[in-house]
């Protein structure tokens, strides 16, 4: 089928769908009962279809070939939520994503999820983002392996074989409180309150349909150089994170975007998200010499250049030896070990800081590692290569983990995850 054929096909499907909605939406909504979309959207004052408003400042588009928040230039804040589903049928789950679609568009337009008309009920939108622009909000939706194991949803035959909980890695100390989830919402914005507001309102609108399993807020500082160009953000160990990310369209297709035939058809143009809540032992790191810190990464701290090179984006040369025949890049460094496998990923990490750990008094701070790849195995391969050897292990502990299949982008008139529900 050619691209233009596809468009026509989509349009037809869309118009039929909309016609159905116009003639029978009310009745259908009631038939589905408490979770009916018609009723829910009506109650929230949200129209059932919204467009990207391109006149809005600092706006990321919702519709497109891929979901926002993956290839989108990384924002300064994230609010990541892992959710459990409470709905008991595929139809109800589908209604949930249909309900979320116009809400997400509205939020990414910098608008509330709906208007309040009756002062006897609580406001439709919680309101804390009123008066600020879209702040480059992106919202990314994904589904976890446990969703497909939920028998009442009847989705087990649609589970991509790649979508599994990550295996146990050396030195993992995963806590149930930060692990897994049926669904995820990754809200990123250049404002912490805008990111939080997005998740808060989507979850609230879905009351009784989902519950929060765990959440984590994160932040980034993005330096801008003299030429006004954005530079790679640094993590809390002060090293640049994301230097080796794929950037070209080809690289993105090779590394990040699921291509036709590479996974279940509903994942084509989607991507797999891996999230790890990694505590960084800041206290021990801060008493580590600069030399040892740089040996840990295999890069220079001041500019991020790999060992033996001058600039951040210079190619890593792991085979290079000094005059004594020793590798320039320490064999226990993060960069050296990560390059022992072919796999590449796209890192989109944030730092976090969540108070102190009760029983030790240490900072509960670290890296909310998020990466996108077309197959979670890419992450697993790299993580296995790091294994027990990684010098970084002395300074970090992985405490949370999740893997989510992020749907392909949403076409105008369609809804989040439609390909899954129509599969």
């Amino acid at each position, binding site marked *: 089928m050619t691209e233009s054929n596809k468009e026509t096909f989509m349009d037809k499907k869309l118009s039929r769908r909309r016609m159905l909605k116009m003639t029978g939406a009310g009745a259908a909504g009631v038939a589905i009962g408490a979770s*009916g979309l018609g*009723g829910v959207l009506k*109650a929230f004052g949200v129209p059932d279809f919204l467009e990207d408003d391109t006149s809005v400042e600092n706006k990321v588009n919702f519709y497109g070939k891929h979901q926002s928040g993956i290839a989108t230039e990384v924002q300064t804040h994230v609010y990541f939520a892992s959710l459990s589903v*409470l709905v008991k049928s595929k139809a109800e789950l589908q209604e949930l994503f249909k309900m979320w679609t116009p809400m997400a568009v509205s939020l990414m337009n910098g608008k509330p999820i709906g208007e309040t008309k*009756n002062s*006897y*009920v609580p406001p439709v939108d919680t309101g804390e983002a009123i008066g600020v622009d879209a702040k480059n909000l992106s919202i990314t939706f994904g589904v976890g392996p446990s969703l497909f194991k939920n028998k009442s949803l009847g989705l087990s035959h649609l589970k991509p074989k790649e979508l599994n909980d990550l295996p146990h890695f050396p030195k993992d100390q995963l806590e149930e409180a930060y692990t897994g989830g049926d669904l995820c919402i990754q809200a990123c914005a250049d404002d912490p309150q805008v990111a939080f507001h997005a998740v808060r309102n989507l979850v*609230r609108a879905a009351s*009784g349909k989902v519950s929060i399993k765990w959440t984590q807020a994160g932040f980034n500082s993005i330096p801008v150089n003299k030429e006004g160009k954005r530079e790679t953000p640094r993590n809390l160990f002060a090293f640049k994170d994301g230097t080796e990310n794929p950037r070209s369209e080809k690289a993105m297709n090779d590394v990040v975007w699921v291509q036709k035939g590479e996974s279940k058809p509903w994942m084509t143009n989607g991507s797999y998200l891996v999230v790890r809540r990694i505590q960084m032992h800041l206290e021990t790191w801060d008493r580590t010499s600069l030399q040892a810190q740089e040996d840990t990464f295999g890069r220079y701290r001041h500019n991020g250049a790999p060992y033996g090179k001058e600039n951040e984006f210079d190619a890593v040369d792991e085979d290079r030896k000094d005059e004594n025949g020793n590798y320039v890049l320490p064999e226990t460094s993060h960069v050296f070990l990560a390059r022992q496998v072919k796999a590449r990923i796209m890192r989109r990490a944030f730092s976090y800081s969540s108070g102190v750990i009760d029983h030790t008094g240490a900072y509960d701070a670290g890296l909310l590692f998020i990466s996108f790849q077309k197959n979670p195995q890419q992450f697993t391969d790299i993580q296995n290569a790091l294994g027990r050897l990684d010098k970084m292990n002395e300074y970090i502990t992985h405490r949370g983990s999740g893997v989510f299949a992020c749907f392909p982008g949403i076409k105008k008139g369609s809804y989040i995850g439609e390909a899954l529900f129509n599969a």
Partner: protein
Amino acid sequence: MKAKSLLAILVAGGVVMGGCGNSDDTKKSDTKTEQTATDTKEVSLDAETKAYKEFALDQLDQFTKATEEFVTAFKDGDMDKAKELYPTARMFFERSEPIAESFGDLDPAIDARLADLEAEGQTKDDWTGYHKLEYALWEDGKTKGYEEVADKLLADTKELRARVETVEVTPDMMINGAVDLLNEVSTSKISGEEDIFSHTDLYDFKANIEGAEKIFEILEPKIKEKDAALAENLTDKFKNVNDLLANYETKDGGYVSYTKLTDKDTKALANAINQLGEPLSQMGTILE
């Protein structure tokens, strides 16, 4: 009453909208609209507010009686009996809290926790009411020296019952009251901070839910008219909470000590409360 006339307009409006886009029925719906318009005076919440006031008065009658028995046992020095009566006597109060707490002086006199007083710069000496006697029974382990507190509790309870006669129950009070009851559960019962000495929080929990459910029951026909899905959802979510609570019932119809609950238990309960609270807060749609 403002709420009444608004409701009337909306009910009429709803019928008109229902007839829209169906030309065959235009005539019929017009007639229907007229009929509804003439009927507006009957569409009010007077019956509902009256029913709720009757419920509250009945609860407070029983509260007075139960408090009398509790105070008698307490003053007789019958600790076991007093401990047995404490959680169940309070339930009548907790069920009717939206009304009971409308008297700013009596509510703290009867139900203040030590933590509340301390937050206001008062001390244990200023403390009266049920929770002080709870402290006497479970923490101090004696009734002697608390007789005056017991007498005052009974006097305050009787005064509350008398004053409630004068309360004008409004639809607003009912709807906000139902949500407030749940908020009570969310903020103090679920954390075990209501009955920190006796750990009988789940009795209060159950009573708050019953109080909210009563309001829903009274308003249910009106909610059904306006938004059938909301009524169905509320029935479902009340059932969720009640089913969860049933896991903690004891053979004698009471509840296990709060200390028996794990973090997982309280989280499940808190989630169920929040899932009920969201649709409950939409009941105001009938006042639209």
